[in-house]
């Protein structure tokens, strides 16, 4: 029996539509759920006040500061390392067993469960290097976590730059480094930025790694060596200890809104940059 191709086409189309719809539905469900539970808790004082009574009352200001601190440290450490490695892998070595080994290593690192990275950060930064539970320990551990993502996305972005551009630059007498900084990197920047923005999202939402390395202090961290809890850790503790579900949802709402804002800002900046270059 032959199946009518037109019918198959229609069936496949509706099936794929359903699959996509389901994916979007899950996303919308999560966001609405958090919004309904969390938005009523939000107010300016919730954002600007210190945590009181273990989180049952007061605001979440210290967790905002901690999250910002941790994410910034992770970015400042991981971005140059990641982009640098990607440049080395794509531009300065020939494809061979060394590059494959490095790439394989980066993929393994990406596959390490975050709780284990947290434990590793605890042993190395908190104990061995004696940074204590601190922003520095947490930020460095987060950097290790996001490094593989940045390397892989940057590498793909650099590889996607047409080889002809480099030929042109070399034929004009530009050195390799001039070629990379003037032509290759600007072309690859949107892709690199996507990787970095994804990493920011992961850092902000990460719980296990920072719970082990940055601690859960209620105070606002003021130096690199202060302990503090990020928004995700605060949410985790509030929910797990059953301290205050409304405040937990409020924190979750802020968490999601900030990730959303970062994505939108990065996207807008990228569009502006692209317009300049094309």
């Amino acid at each position, binding site marked *: 029996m032959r199946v009518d191709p037109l019918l198959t086409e229609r069936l496949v189309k509706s099936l794929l539509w359903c699959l996509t719809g389901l994916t979007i539905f899950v996303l919308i469900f999560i966001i609405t759920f958090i919004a309904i539970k969390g938005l009523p808790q939000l107010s300016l004082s919730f954002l600007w006040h210190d945590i009181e009574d273990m989180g049952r009352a007061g605001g979440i200001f210290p967790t905002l500061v901690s999250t910002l601190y941790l994410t910034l440290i992770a970015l400042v450490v991981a971005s140059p390392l990641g982009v640098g490695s990607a440049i080395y892998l794509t531009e300065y070595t020939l494809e061979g067993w060394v590059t494959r080994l490095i790439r394989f290593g980066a993929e393994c690192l990406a596959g390490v469960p975050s709780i284990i990275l947290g434990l590793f950060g605890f042993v190395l930064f908190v104990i061995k290097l004696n940074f204590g539970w601190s922003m520095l320990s947490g930020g460095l551990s987060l950097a290790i976590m996001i490094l593989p993502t940045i390397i892989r996305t940057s590498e793909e972005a650099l590889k996607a730059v047409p080889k*002809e551009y480099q030929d042109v630059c070399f034929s004009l007498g530009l050195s390799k480094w001039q070629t990379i900084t003037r032509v290759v990197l600007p072309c690859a920047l949107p892709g690199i930025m996507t990787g970095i923005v994804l990493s920011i999202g992961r850092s902000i939402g990460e719980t296990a790694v920072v719970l082990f390395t940055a601690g859960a202090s209620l105070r606002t961290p003021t130096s690199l060596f202060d302990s503090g809890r990020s928004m995700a850790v605060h949410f985790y503790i509030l929910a797990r200890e059953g301290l205050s579900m409304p405040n937990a949802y409020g924190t979750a709402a802020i968490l999601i809104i900030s990730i959303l804002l970062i994505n939108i800002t990065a996207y807008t900046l990228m569009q502006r940059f692209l317009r300049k270059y094309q």
Partner: protein
Amino acid sequence: MLPVKIQVRELTFHYGSHCAIQGLNLDIYQGEILGLMGPAKSGKTTFLRVLNRMCDLIPNVRIQGSVRLDDEEILAPHYDVDSLRRRIGMVFAKPVPLPRSIYENLAFAPRLQKKPQHRDDLAELVENSLKAAQLWDEVKDRLHDSALKLSGGQQQRLCLARTLAMAPEVILLDEPTSGLDPISTARIEETLTALKKDFTIVLVSNNTKQIARCSDKVAFLLMSRLVEYGVTPEVFMVPKQKETDDYISGRFG
């Protein structure tokens, strides 16, 4: 007699175990257009890439012999290839404008060399180069538009102008009109003829008629070897070798 600009002696080139050029001897005279013709895989492009050392970018190559530019060996191991490439410019088969404005495409490389010190000098350099490539009239009102919006023929003339802006001594053209329509091709050929008083030009082309129209001397490569070399009209009227005759009359290739 014109002075010799580039002197090639016993040049042999291998990609791994594959021999791309074998025992090539050739003189390229200043202020002339040398046309290089030959079927695919005969070593034409490889030869161009040796002249500006772009062949360095390919792994696993072996070069023997000597290439002298103004009596200076350019195959020497520690030769400054960046400055060599500023003296020997290259235009590729496929027009590759960089994803920037027309002006920036021309200005960015000279600016990095700090050649024109002043902004006005740079603008003048851009204008002169575009005029020399016969593109100025078409783009003078939209210098700051993206170069990617130009047509294929305009893009190729832009690439030529970009090479000219570096004020090279020699220009290598690797089948510059292979992707262009006849009118754009004619404009490029006109431009080349006008340019040869200031530059030495090496033109690689699959189009034998183009070589016959544009070049002063012609070299015919076949299977990695130089088969025939001579003054263009002579080679086309009375080729000395049978292979050349077969090739230009279209019996193979």
